[in-house]
């Protein structure tokens, strides 16, 4: 068990792949914003890769360990300390009852840390997932972010041989301040919705992440007016970004409202009346969650569906690699 002393900016229970199968009923998948860091953290502490962990956005939070166990911290380096001593990332560490765990704040690169606990987080599954949908206030820990004095239960597990396991450094994800997101155009693209020039801009220009970025959408900087291949939205509305309401290719949709593109992610809308001009490939979704709002940039890189499927397969193989974890 772990007690929250200070909930910081936003600490949530999230798993992977989240709550699939309910988009047609208006429920987004939610799930970890950086699914790679969560999955690696889980594998380090001997959990199933998709088990729920704590997603720490921004930092500034403190916890008290209320039961002996083993933890691993992955993702962005927020200079975590355990009992005042520096805590190494990407490594399984024993914790004792009474230990305090402190996270400073996001630093040079990355915006989210994951705290994975051997055994996993014990919250009830809601519609097949432990993930919090913050936007809809359901799932996870009472449908909300954690606050002071919350006690999060963990599942007990045989802890023998877990402490000391660590990620093979060759698999360490690369962090930076400009995130290259491989993406596929569609469903709304050239020639009917967007100009060739517009797509060149979208796929060639580093775009700053707005301060207006949350678990539902990461807003990016505006596209130029030459982006549009049409005068208006026809039956969908007056602006060329309007369309008769359609389902969104969520998670990963590049949705444009007015001239502002947004990356629709975890808790994003499932359906609406704006065009979706591209989709960030599944294997690169994790990078969005590490983009620092109001500071980092994203750059879309055009790839084919075949490339994207190959990248998915490689990711799945990597997570099963025999040399992934060093004992």
């Amino acid at each position, binding site marked *: 068990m772990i007690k929250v002393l200070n909930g910081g900016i936003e600490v949530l229970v999230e798993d992977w792949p989240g709550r*699939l*199968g*309910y*988009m*047609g*009923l*208006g*429920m987004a998948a939610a799930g970890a914003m950086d699914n790679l860091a969560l999955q690696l953290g889980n594998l380090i502490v001997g959990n199933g890769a998709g088990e729920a962990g704590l997603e720490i956005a921004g930092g500034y939070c403190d916890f008290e360990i209320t039961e002996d166990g083993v933890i691993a911290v992955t993702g962005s380096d927020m200079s975590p300390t355990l009992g005042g001593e520096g805590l190494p990332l990407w490594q399984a560490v024993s914790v004792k009852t009474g230990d305090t765990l402190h996270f400073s704040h996001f630093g040079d690169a990355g915006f989210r840390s994951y705290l994975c606990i051997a055994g996993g987080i014990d919250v009830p599954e809601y*519609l097949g997932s432990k993930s919090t949908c913050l936007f*809809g206030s*359901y799932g996870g820990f009472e449908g909300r972010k954690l606050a002071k004095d919350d006690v999060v239960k963990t599942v007990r597990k045989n802890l023998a041989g877990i402490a000391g396991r660590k990620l093979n450094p060759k698999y360490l994800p690369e962090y930076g301040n400009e995130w290259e997101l491989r993406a*596929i*155009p*569609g*469903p*709304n*693209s*050239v*020639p*009917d919705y*967007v100009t*060739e020039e517009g*797509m060149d801009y979208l796929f060639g220009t580093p775009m700053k992440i707005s301060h207006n970025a949350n678990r539902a959408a990461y807003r990016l900087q505006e596209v130029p007016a030459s982006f549009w291949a049409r005068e208006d939205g*026809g*039956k*969908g509305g007056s602006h060329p970004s309007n*369309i*008769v*309401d*359609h*389902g*969104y*290719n969520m998670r*990963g*949709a590049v949705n444009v409202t007015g001239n502002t593109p947004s990356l629709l992610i975890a808790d994003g*809308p*499932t*359906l*609406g009346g704006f065009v*979706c001009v591209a*989709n*960030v*490939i*599944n294997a690169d979704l994790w990078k969005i969650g590490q983009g620092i709002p109001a500071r980092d940039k994203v750059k879309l890189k*055009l790839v084919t*569906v075949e490339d*994207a*499927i190959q*990248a*998915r*397969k490689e990711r*799945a193989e990597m997570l099963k690699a025999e040399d992934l974890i060093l004992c």
Partner: protein
Amino acid sequence: MSKYEVILDTLPAKGDRIEILFRQAGDGFIQVEYGYEQRVELLDSFRILAVDAKVKQTKNNGLIETLPSLRANMIHFDPTVISPMALIDKIKEAEESIAGVDDMVIDSRIITLPIAFEDSQTKKAVEMYLKQVRKDAPNCTDGYNLEYMALCNGCSVDDIKQMLLDTYWYNSGCGFWPGGGFFWPMDPRCKMLVPKYNPPRIWTPEGAVGIGGACLFTYTTATGGGYQLFGRTIPTFQFSMKHPQFKDGPFLYRPSGDRIKFVEVSEKEILDIYDHVHDRTDYVYDIVDSRIVVKEYLDFLAKPEVVKGAAEFAARQEQGSGTAPKL
């Protein structure tokens, strides 16, 4: 050909079937779009739902979920299990098995929902809007939106209420908010048209019944929103799943095809039903299994009195929308 082209395949128009486009939408998404030009026709939705049911009936490994909307269906799948082209072939097979409108029969439950007009919760939402969002909002006469809706449609408040009660409201798909359906009037003589709030509300009570454009929505939980409000109906969603109607999921509406029929009751009755749904959990929903025989519906639309009535209403509406204040 542009490297940003997204149309992977098409089915040509045939008989009364419109052209169908398969658009790439990511490495796990394909959009099936009905018609190259956007239009708002329930007939397209009937076809989408008939095909959607067939696609889901056949065991398609790798299919995760579908998101039908009025003129498109977003297919979410795992491309490591089924290739995009193989999935398109399956959907084409389902398409080809439906020869034409004469063959189309849609499963469609009839859900009778009580509604109270001019209730206190709707009034509260409108008052809050005036106080907190837009003091001079022209759509909030006497604490409700009904006067404004009447103005926009060139008719009286009583006409507005009667049109809501007279028609069946057909669900083309769910989305936007957990459990929410997008409902369309089946009787063109009741096809009210109203602009959405500008800017949107920050609070709407659970059960509010609203309309934006021609589309009706029942608010499943308290949330923001932009539709003009008629009044308040009973719960159409229950997160806790305590009531037997919700034992398999928090949703009242199925992903699509349901029809609503409203009956007017007092606010006291509505409040009483809230108690019997959420607290005593013994309210019995009035839901009847039924179907839409599309041919019969088209015959109804072609009746002289329906054609004449719809044209007369459209003329009044045009006049009304010209004089009503813009939002």
